[in-house]
């Protein structure tokens, strides 16, 4: 599979007056495969939008490499093959939906009103395309934004918070459109806080925190390691004792046994043990690891590691062992991501 986006040790540092500097993106290594929906996650201020701006060539990187569709980010030729929908865009309100899409089409030299109308129909704005944008709801604004981003039939779409602040129906509509893009073979790079959406539609994700990558991979791999909860009635003490294990918890509620075990455990074996012991299995509930858990885990672990690093650096200042301690922590982070 070819790479639609690749960054190698990408860094963005802002220098302030007085010599201070702020590294917003720190040695970021991303690989986005062609034809996939890629979720780019991180808390506020993690460096997501800055990364997107660098990939679009709107701002330059301080160091490192950013390649988009096999070329250096910012190459004007690449702009003909990509598109971008920013977070909460505010368009020229005096224009109608159709005028807006016609305007963006003209930037590509496209003069095809029928195509513009077709795109507006595709995003369910057929009946509203001649209304001024000032009368559009948030969901409609987002849909017209998607229509403008499709005008050049892009191979790669950058969507910054595409479902942010939308009602549930608008949410579903946008989500379905994004899934359609994948079916058409487009690559979609989504930056979002809506973890449930990302979990539903993305093939792979990357999580960044304070500019650094803390996790990247296929969702199925990253979310592996869920648990399963088995509830049974009439379980004897001997059977419950036999089920106890290092990674399992066994508890009783209202006379029922509740067994919580990793989903990698031998589920059939546990059920057989219960039934052979005369117990009645009432329910088996798989507790899949959620993206939210992964996100919080990854960010919290990273914050803790950085906290330790800062602590060691502070200690190091007094005893002169800064560089060794910091190096150790950094190596550890590199392995975990």
């Amino acid at each position, binding site marked *: 599979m070819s790479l639609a986006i690749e960054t190698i040790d990408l860094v963005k540092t802002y220098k302030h007056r007085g010599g201070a500097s702020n590294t917003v993106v720190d040695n970021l290594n991303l690989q986005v495969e062609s034809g996939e929906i890629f979720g780019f996650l991180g808390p506020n201020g993690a460096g997501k939008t800055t990364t997107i701006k660098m990939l679009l060539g*709107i701002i*330059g990187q301080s160091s490192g490499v950013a390649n988009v569709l096999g070329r250096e980010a910012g190459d004007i030729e690449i*702009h003909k093959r990509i598109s971008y929908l*920013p977070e909460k*865009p505010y368009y*020229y309100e005096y224009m109608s939906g159709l005028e807006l899409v016609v305007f*963006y089409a*003209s930037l590509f030299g496209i003069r095809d009103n029928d195509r513009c109308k077709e795109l507006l129909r595709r995003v369910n704005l057929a009946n509203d395309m001649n209304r001024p944008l000032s009368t559009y709801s948030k969901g409609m604004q987002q849909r017209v934004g998607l229509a*403008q*981003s499709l005008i050049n039939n892009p191979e790669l779409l950058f969507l910054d918070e595409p479902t942010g602040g939308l009602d549930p129906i608008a949410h579903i509509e946008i989500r379905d459109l994004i899934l359609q893009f994948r079916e058409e073979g487009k690559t979609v790079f989504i930056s979002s806080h809506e973890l449930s959406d990302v979990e539903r539609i993305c093939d792979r994700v990357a999580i960044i925190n304070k500019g650094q990558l803390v996790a990247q991979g296929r969702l199925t791999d990253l979310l592996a390691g869920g648990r399963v909860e088995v509830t049974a009635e009439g379980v004897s003490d001997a059977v419950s004792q036999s089920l106890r294990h290092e990674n399992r918890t066994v508890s009783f509620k209202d006379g029922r046994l509740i067994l919580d075990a990793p989903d990698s455990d031998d589920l059939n074996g546990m059920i057989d043990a219960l039934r052979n012991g005369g117990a009645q299995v009432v329910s088996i509930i798989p507790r899949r690891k959620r993206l939210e858990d992964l996100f919080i885990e990854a960010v919290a672990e990273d914050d803790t590691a950085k906290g330790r690093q800062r602590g060691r650096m502070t200690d190091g200042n007094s005893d002169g062992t800064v560089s060794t301690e910091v190096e150790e922590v950094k190596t550890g982070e590199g392995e975990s991501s």
Partner: protein
Amino acid sequence: MNAVLSIARTTLGEAIRRRVLLVILLIALLLLVIAPGMNGLTARQSQTVLLSLILGVLQLSSAVIAIVLTVYMIPNEVERRTIYTILSKPVLRWQFLLGKYLGAVSALGLMIMLMTGTMIAVFAAFQGPNVETLASLARVAMMYFVQMCLLAAVAIFFSTFVQPVVNFFLSGGVYLVGTVFGSLFATIAESQQLPQAVRVAAQIVMLIVPNFGQYNVQNSVINSGAQIVGEGIYYTNLAVYGVVYISILLLGAMLVFDRREV
């Protein structure tokens, strides 16, 4: 060029709908209409006073419109994030900036045309349809338009690196120096009694700050005795001066904007 014209068209469409500009325009039109009445209140009821008044209103309101129109143009695009949707398309930064400038200048042209039309109608209604004077008024308005194009270029140049409020005062200051104090700096630069350093400083100011004052050709209309010698050449020179200065300012703006992180 397609992209430049599309951006210019959009900028024009937006500018002519901006409420603050419409309010300024409305006030200017109102002042132009009531100017003959104000003239009636003065002791000297003459054509000179009326001409001074209406041309003053036209110039001042054009300058305010030019500055207000351009200082917020780039910052607004960044704040609304529309700039990102445009620059992520195959549009170069210089094309974006040139499109914004041409849109602003078109809007300015429309507004000045509207005010000039009103001014000429008012003057004709109260002083009679003297074709020669009316043509002279149109010529003065034309020079004001070139002056405002230059002012808009100054404001757009500053807008690539300063905040709108600072830009408002900066552009206004440059206009004031270039209009009112131009002759003062010229006198200082030529005065042999002043120290060399002061004269050089005055010459530098004159070199950097565009000479807006030379576009104020209203004297030839207001004072019937005053006349411009070699009118054709004079106006051509003014136009060339404006085009050169505007080109330099836009080139500077493009260089700064190309490196700016938005």
